């Protein structure tokens, strides 16, 4: 009975936070402008890469490297949105709306509440990812055959990836709760660093050997590789970085790293949450 009550409480915390997050993300303007806003940013980001590539490769969009960087950039949007989104929820609620203390004293589960806040960003990012990929397929002729795509692998990888990003986000949320300065930047800083080291828009083999190993220890690299392979298997396998690993190998590594980060996240968030309560940081307003 206690377990069922706990599950109900977690679900209620999660769903209410998801609804709240959606309202915060979207109701600052009318739906049309919000849709434009959600499309323009990701398309511009992809546009920079498209122009850079087209100048050098004389618009040969059929090359495997183009599909590699375009899809990597499209899927990477989830990393910034989900991971930073969770950390941002702490800053938003504590500094901006000044409601974090009320959330803590209400009968909800704070970790599930934070996970729920990440849902809105996941939804808007999914919209942006779909639009970016559709643009690539329609206008840039990316060789993506929806009939050939491995949808089972795609959905499985996406789900594991979201869990993995959420666990990273929880860690950042714990850190954001405990620091007075730059809490608004840690999400972007980690997402930026991962963008570089995960080989999102270039094969890892391009990175200097001294820092390449970083790409092999972050789960995002494996996740992006699997996402690309599920869409265009042959193209992604053409690069040497992970070509010796099968999809099963990659999946096992991704699951293993997600478990490691998941356990670390639960422990770290628990400790940081306790520290924040102990030091009176839950209702801190730094105005930084």
């Amino acid at each position, binding site marked *: 009975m206690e377990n069922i009550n706990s599950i109900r409480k977690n679900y209620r915390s999660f769903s209410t936070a998801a609804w709240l997050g959606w309202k915060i993300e979207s109701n*600052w*303007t009318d739906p049309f402008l919000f849709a434009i*806003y959600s499309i*323009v*940013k*990701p398309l*511009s*980001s992809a*546009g*920079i*890469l498209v*122009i*850079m*590539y*087209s*100048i*050098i*490769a004389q618009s040969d969009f059929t090359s495997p*490297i183009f599909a590699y*960087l375009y899809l990597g950039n499209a899927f990477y949007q989830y990393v910034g949105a989900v991971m930073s989104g969770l950390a941002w929820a702490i800053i938003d609620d504590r500094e*901006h*709306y000044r409601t974090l203390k009320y959330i803590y004293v209400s009968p909800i589960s704070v970790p599930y509440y934070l996970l729920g806040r990440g849902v809105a960003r996941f939804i808007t990012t999914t919209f942006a990812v779909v639009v970016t990929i559709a643009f690539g397929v329609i206008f840039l002729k990316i060789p993506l055959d929806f009939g050939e795509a491995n949808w089972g692998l795609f959905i499985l990888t996406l789900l594991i990836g979201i869990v993995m990003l959420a666990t990273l986000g929880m860690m950042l949320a714990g850190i954001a709760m405990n620091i007075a*300065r*730059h809490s608004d*930047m840690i999400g*972007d*800083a980690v997402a*930026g*660093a991962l*963008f*570089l080291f995960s080989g*999102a*828009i*270039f*094969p890892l083999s*391009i*990175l200097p050997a001294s820092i390449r190993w970083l790409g092999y220890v972050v789960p995002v690299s494996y996740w992006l590789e699997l996402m690309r392979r599920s869409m265009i298997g042959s193209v992604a396998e053409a690069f040497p970085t992970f070509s010796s690993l099968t999809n099963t190998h990659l999946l096992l590594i991704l699951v293993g790293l997600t478990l490691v980060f998941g356990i670390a996240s639960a422990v770290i968030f628990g400790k940081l949450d306790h520290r924040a309560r102990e030091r009176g940081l839950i209702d801190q307003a730094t*105005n930084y």
Partner: protein
Amino acid sequence: MMLPPVTKKATGWKLFWLTAFGRAYPRLVGQQREKSWLFFDVFFPMISVASYVFVYRAIQAPEDYIGFVVVGGAMTAFWMNVLWSMSSQLYWEKQTGNLALYIVSPAPMSAILMGMSLGGLAATTIRAVSVILLGSLIFQVSYTVVSFWMLLAIFLVCMVALYGMGMMTSSLFLLFNREAWHIANLAQEPIFLVSGFYFPVKSLNFWVAVGASIIPLTLGLDAMRQLVFSTGASLGFLNVRLELYILIGLAVVFLTAARYLLAYIEKLAVREGRLTEGRR
């Protein structure tokens, strides 16, 4: 304890420049005391620079393109400063309650904006130079400076026009509420794209490049690349001298518009009671 009465009051130009200095001070001095800001202000552009450099390396682009990215990446610091610390600054001041104090004081608003510009420009120059030095060192960029004085002139005029644009748009942000953050956020990647921060703007459609030239960094960056890279001139959008003249024109237009728009919007904001509202 009562403060002693003010016996010497500054008025006119003296008040203007004292106000400008007072507003520039936190950016000139205060900002340098927080060393971690310098780290983040250099770290973020460097991440983008490194990522785009590796993309160019992956597709075997000529070496000058690496330099284009380093210079473009450094210039993003100015755009981010104008966007977040000029245009949207009055919105933040409203949120923190400072805006009402500015308005009720005898200090002219234009002097406050001027101070923000000068302080922001000086602080950002340190960051941009750091990005160029680091980027050039790490990625071994070589420069061929055609004319140092022309380069300096282009940079200075570009900055006057850019910060003039920031002063002009800051008045518009005075009217924004929750959308301010999103609008500033929206003006990042699309501007990086159309202004050619990471590639020569000439690669875009001619009319797109003409439209993007309303943003001073588009022509400023194009001219600077023409003046410091051996292949720059062949990849330039317009003649450097013509770009300088256009930038001078933009500077005059933006500074004049800033003066009139600020007075108009301030009146409008007072009339509509928007100076002290804090809708979240």
